[in-house]
C-alpha cells in the first residue's frame, strides 16, 4: 500500500475520524457543514478502512507501539486477520450509515449537529481502536470511550425522561460488563503483571484459571452483546438513539462484544475447553429464541428491530459455542466451519440490521411515527425506502438467495456434524440445537412479514401518512449501499469465505477446505456432502419467473381493472380493520405464553367508548432485576444508617477504627 503498512494506514484513518469529529465543533450549529461535508468525509474514511482491512485479511499480522497514554504504558497495537474481519465490518457498515446520516440529521433534534458529529465519529474511531488494541490497557481505554460515546449518542434527545432512563440503564450494564472484562484481564496476566496481549498469549493458564477467565469474559462481553439475561438495556437504548446511531450500535457495537469473546477464548487463552462451548451454545440459542419471540410481540418498529438484534447475536453466539466445542475436542476443520458460519453471520447481520434501522429512520422522518399501529401503506409514498428495506427484511428472514440464508446454511451444516462428537449424550442433545436455529429463523420470517407488512403494505392507518415523502438522495445511497452488500454477500459466498478463512486459520488453526468448489458453487465439506450455488439458484428462479410472465403475456390478454378491495358486502371497510401490530403478534403471544408477562384491559360489552389495551413485558425484568434492585436498595439503606450526621459519631468511628488497627498491628 504505497509503502505504508496496513496498520499505519488504518491508524491514520481512525485518526481521520477523530479529526472530522473535532472539526464538527468549529460550526456546531450548522447542519449543512456537519452533514454535507463532515459525514461524507467520514464515509470516505470508512471506505478506506474497508479497503485496508480487505488488504490486511490475507497479510501477516502487523504490530506497532504507540507512545501515547500514561508514562511507561504505551498503547500496543496489532492488526491480524481477526481484527481485519471486524474492521471490514465496521468500515463497510459505516459507509452506509455515514452517507445516510449526511442527509438524515436535522436541526433542532436534541444535541447540536456539530457535537453529534463529534460523538458519532469518536464512537466509530473507538470501535476501530478496540479492534486493533493489543494490550489490556489500550483495549479497556478504547472500550470505555466506545461506551461513553454511545451513551451520549443514545441520550441525544435528553429532554425526554424515558430516554435518560434508557441511557442510565445502558451505562450501568455497560459498566457491569466492563468490570467483568477488567477482571478477566486480571486473571489472564497470571500474576506476572504483563498486560500486553502477547504476554497473555505466551502464558498458559491451568484449567481452573482459564475457565475463570472465560466465564468473566463471557459475562463481560455478553453484557455488551445483549445476551439474555443481560439484554434488558438493548431494547431501551437502541431505539432511543437517532436511527444511524441505532444502526451502528446494533450492527457494529454488538459485534465488538463477539470479537472480544473470540479474541479472549481462542487467541488469548489459547486452548479452550470443550464444555465452555456448551455454555455459549445454550445461552446463544436461548437468546435467539427469546429475542425473536419478543420481537414478534413489539408494537414499536425500532424496539422490534432491537429484539431482533438479540436474536441474531444469539445465533452468532451459538455458532461460537459450536466452534468452541469442536475446537476443544480437537475437531479443527469442523471448528473452522462453525467459526466461519459465525463470522459470516456477523457480517450479514451488520449489513441487514443497519439497512432496516436506516429504513425505519427514513419512515420516522417522513411520518414522525415509531408506533406500528399508526403506520401502513407507505410503499406507495416512499417506494425507494420500501423496496430497499424489502431486501433487508427478506435477508434477515434468511431466505435464499440473500445473505442471511448463507450463514444459516453454514450453521445448520455445522450442527449436522455434532453426532460425531465423541461424548455420548452430548452428541444426542446438540443436533436438537439445529431445531432451535430453524425455529428462530422461521420466527424471524414471521417477524419480518409483520414489520414490513404493517409499515409498508396495506392501507395507511392514519390520514396524515398520505403526505409522507420519500427520503433524499444521500439517504437513498446509504440504503442502496447496504442493500447491495446484502445481495453480494448472498450471491458470492465462495469469495467471502475465501477472505474469512484467514481468520479461521488464526483462531482454530485451519480453514475450510474446497471440495469440488467452483467460483459459483459453495461446497465447503467433504465431497458430495452438501453444496449451494446461490447464483445458479437466483438465475433459476428469475428465468422461471420471466418465462412464466412471458408465456402468460403471449397466450392471454393482459387486461386489468382496478376496484376497491372486496368487503364481503359490508360496505364500510376501513384501514382500522387491518391487523394491528398487536393483532399480528397474537399467535406468537399465544404459542409462547410462558415467555411473556401480559397485562390486558378488556372492555365490557356495555362500554360506550370501548378500549382494548395489552401490555407485554419482559419476565426477566421482574424475575431478576427487580429483586436485585430491591436488594441493592436495602443494602444502601443499611449503610445509610451509619451516616448519622453528627460529628461526634464520626469521631467515634475514627477512634474505633484506630483501636482495631492497633490491635491488628500489635497482635
Amino acid at each position, binding site marked *: 500500500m504505497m509503502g505504508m503498512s496496513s496498520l499505519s494506514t488504518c491508524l491514520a484513518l481512525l485518526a481521520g475520524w477523530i479529526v472530522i469529529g473535532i472539526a464538527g465543533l468549529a460550526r456546531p450549529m450548522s447542519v449543512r457543514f456537519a452533514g454535507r461535508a463532515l459525514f461524507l468525509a467520514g464515509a470516505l474514511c470508512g471506505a478506506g478502512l474497508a479497503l485496508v482491512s480487505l488488504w490486511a485479511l490475507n497479510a501477516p499480522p502487523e504490530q506497532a507501539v504507540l507512545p501515547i497514554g500514561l508514562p511507561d504504558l504505551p498503547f500496543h497495537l496489532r492488526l491480524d486477520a481477526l481484527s481485519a474481519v471486524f474492521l471490514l465490518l465496521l468500515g463497510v457498515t459505516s459507509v452506509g450509515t455515514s452517507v445516510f446520516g449526511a442527509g438524515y440529521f436535522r436541526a433542532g433534534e436534541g444535541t447540536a449537529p456539530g457535537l453529534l458529529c463529534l460523538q458519532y465519529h469518536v464512537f466509530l474511531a473507538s470501535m476501530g481502536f478496540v479492534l486493533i488494541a493489543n494490550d489490556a490497557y489500550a483495549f479497556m481505554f478504547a472500550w470505555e470511550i466506545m461506551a461513553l460515546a454511545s451513551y451520549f449518542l443514545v441520550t441525544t434527545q435528553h429532554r425526554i425522561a424515558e430516554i435518560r432512563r434508557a441511557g442510565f440503564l445502558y451505562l450501568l450494564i455497560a459498566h457491569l460488563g466492563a468490570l467483568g472484562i477488567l477482571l478477566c484481564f486480571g486473571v489472564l496476566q497470571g500474576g506476572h503483571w504483563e498486560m500486553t496481549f502477547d504476554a497473555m498469549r505466551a502464558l498458559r493458564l491451568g484449567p481452573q484459571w482459564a475457565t475463570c477467565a472465560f466465564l468473566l469474559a463471557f459475562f463481560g462481553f455478553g453484557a455488551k452483546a445483549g445476551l439474555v439475561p443481560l439484554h434488558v438495556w438493548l431494547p431501551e437504548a437502541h431505539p432511543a438513539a437517532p436511527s444511524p446511531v441505532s444502526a451502528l450500535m446494533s450492527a457494529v457495537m454488538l459485534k465488538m462484544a463477539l470479537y472480544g469473546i473470540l479474541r479472549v477464548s481462542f487467541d488469548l487463552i489459547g486452548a479452550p475447553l470443550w464444555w465452555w462451548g456448551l455454555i455459549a451454545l445454550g445461552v446463544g440459542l436461548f437468546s435467539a429464541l427469546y429475542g425473536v419471540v419478543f420481537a414478534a410481540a413489539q408494537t414499536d418498529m425500532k424496539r422490534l428491530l432491537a429484539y431482533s438484534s438479540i436474536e441474531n447475536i444469539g445465533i452468532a453466539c451459538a455458532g461460537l459455542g459450536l466452534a468452541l466445542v469442536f475446537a476443544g475436542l480437537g475437531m479443527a476443520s469442523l471448528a473452522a466451519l462453525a467459526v466461519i458460519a459465525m463470522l459470516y453471520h456477523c457480517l450479514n447481520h451488520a449489513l441487514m440490521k443497519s439497512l432496516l434501522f436506516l429504513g425505519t429512520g427514513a419512515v420516522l422522518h417522513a411520518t414522525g411515527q415509531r408506533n406500528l399501529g399508526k403506520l401502513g401503506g407507505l410503499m406507495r409514498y416512499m417506494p425507494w425506502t420500501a423496496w430497499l428495506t424489502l431486501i433487508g427484511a427478506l435477508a434477515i428472514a434468511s431466505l435464499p438467495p440473500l445473505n442471511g440464508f448463507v450463514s444459516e446454511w453454514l450453521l445448520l451444516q455445522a450442527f449436522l456434524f455434532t453426532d460425531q462428537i465423541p461424548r455420548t449424550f452430548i452428541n444426542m442433545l446438540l443436533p436438537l440445537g439445529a431445531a432451535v436455529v430453524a425455529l428462530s429463523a422461521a420466527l424471524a420470517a414471521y417477524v419480518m412479514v409483520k414489520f414490513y407488512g404493517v409499515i409498508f403494505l396495506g392501507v395507511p392507518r392514519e390520514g396524515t401518512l398520505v403526505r409522507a415523502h420519500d427520503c433524499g438522495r444521500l439517504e437513498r445511497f446509504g440504503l442502496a449501499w447496504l442493500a447491495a452488500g446484502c445481495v453480494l454477500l448472498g450471491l458470492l459466498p465462495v469469495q467471502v469465505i475465501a477472505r474469512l478463512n484467514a481468520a479461521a486459520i488464526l483462531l482454530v488453526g485451519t480453514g475450510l477446505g474446497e471440495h469440488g468448489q467452483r467460483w459459483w458453487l459453495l461446497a465447503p465439506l467433504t465431497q458430495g456432502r452438501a453444496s449451494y450455488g446461490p447464483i445458479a439458484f437466483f438465475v*433459476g428462479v428469475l428465468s422461471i419467473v420471466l418465462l412464466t410472465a412471458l408465456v402468460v403475456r403471449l397466450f392471454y390478454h393482459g387486461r386489468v381493472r382496478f376496484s376497491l378491495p372486496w368487503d364481503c358486502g359490508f360496505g364500510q371497510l376501513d384501514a382500522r380493520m387491518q391487523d394491528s401490530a398487536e393483532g399480528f403478534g*397474537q399467535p406468537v403471544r399465544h404459542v409462547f405464553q410462558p415467555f411473556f408477562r401480559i397485562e390486558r384491559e378488556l372492555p365490557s360489552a356495555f362500554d360506550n367508548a370501548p378500549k382494548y389495551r395489552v401490555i407485554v413485558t419482559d419476565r426477566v425484568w421482574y424475575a431478576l432485576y427487580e429483586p436485585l434492585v430491591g436488594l441493592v436498595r436495602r443494602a444502601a439503606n443499611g449503610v445509610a444508617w451509619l451516616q448519622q450526621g453528627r460529628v461526634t459519631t464520626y469521631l467515634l468511628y475514627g477512634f474505633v477504627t484506630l483501636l482495631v488497627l492497633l490491635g491488628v498491628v500489635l497482635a
Partner: protein
Amino acid sequence: MNVIALLTQGLEIIVAVAAAPLFLGWINQCRAWLQNRSAPSVLQPYRTIQKLFNKDAVIAANSSALFRVAPYIVFGAMTLAAAIIPSMGTRLPFTAAADAIALVGLLATARVFMALAAMDSGTAFGTLGARREMMVGFLAEPALLMVIFVASLISATTSLPAISEHLTTEAIGLYPSLAFTAVAFTMVLLAENGRIPIDNPATHLELTMIHEAMLLEYSARHLALMEWAAALKLFNYACIGFALFLPWGIAAGAAAPNALLLAIPVLAVKLVLAGSGLALIETVSAKLRVFRAPEFLATAFLFAVLGLLVHLLLGA
C-alpha cells in the same frame, strides 16, 4: 453433465408442472367418492385454471406492484422446487446448486411473498390469512427441517438426490427412525398445504380459513398462478415424501433411458396411492380450531425429534 441428466431435469420440471393439477383433481375425486358425493372430473382443476386465465384481472386499487409480482414469484419458486426434488431420477444437474436446506428456504420464500401480497391489499381477511399462514409456517418449518435432518444424518449428506440414492442402495431400507419421521412429515404436509385438519381447501368460512383468506383479493391470471402454485406445492411435498421414505423406483445413478421410462409409471402409482391416502385422512379427520394447530404441529415436531433420537441411539 450429460444429455440424459439434462433430459431428466427437464422432464422432472415439465411433469411436475403439468401433472400437479391432475394430482389435485385425483384427490378431490377420491374425497368425493369417500364422502358419497358425485365426483368432479379429475380434469376439473385444469378447467378452472383455463377459465381463470381468460378472465379480466380485478386488482385492489390501493395495492402495490408487489401484489402483482407475487404470483409469478410463488409459481417460480414452486417450479424451481420441483427441479430440486428427485421424483424420477437422481442425476439432476441443478441439485448441486440447492440442497434440502435450500429447498426449505425456497418454500419459505414462497410463503413470505404470499403473506406479503396478502397484506398488500389492506383488508381484514388478507392480514388474518397472512398471520395464520406465517404461524403455521414457523411451526411447520422446524419440524420439516428435523425430518430432513434425520435422513441427512443417515446418509451423511443434505443433497436430496444423494439421500434417496443412499436409501435405495442400502440392503435393508427399513429404518425405525424414518418411520417416526414419516409420521411427522405427513403431519407437516397436511399443515403446509392447507389440508384438513389445519385448513379446509373447500370452504370459505372466515373463522377457519388460512390459504383462501390470503388469496381473496386475487382474480383471473394471478389467481390461476396462485392455484397452480398451490397444486404444485402439494405435488412437491408428495415427491419429497417419496424421495425420503419411498425412494424405490427412482432411477438412481447414471440412469439409462429405460430406467427413467420405468420411473414415470412408478411415480404415477405412488401418486395415485398417496392421493387416495390423503383423501382418506382428510375424510376421517375433523378440522381443528386454529389454536389447536400449534399442538398438532408440536406433535409433528416431537415425532421428528423422536426419530432423531432413535437414529442417534440405535444408529439406524
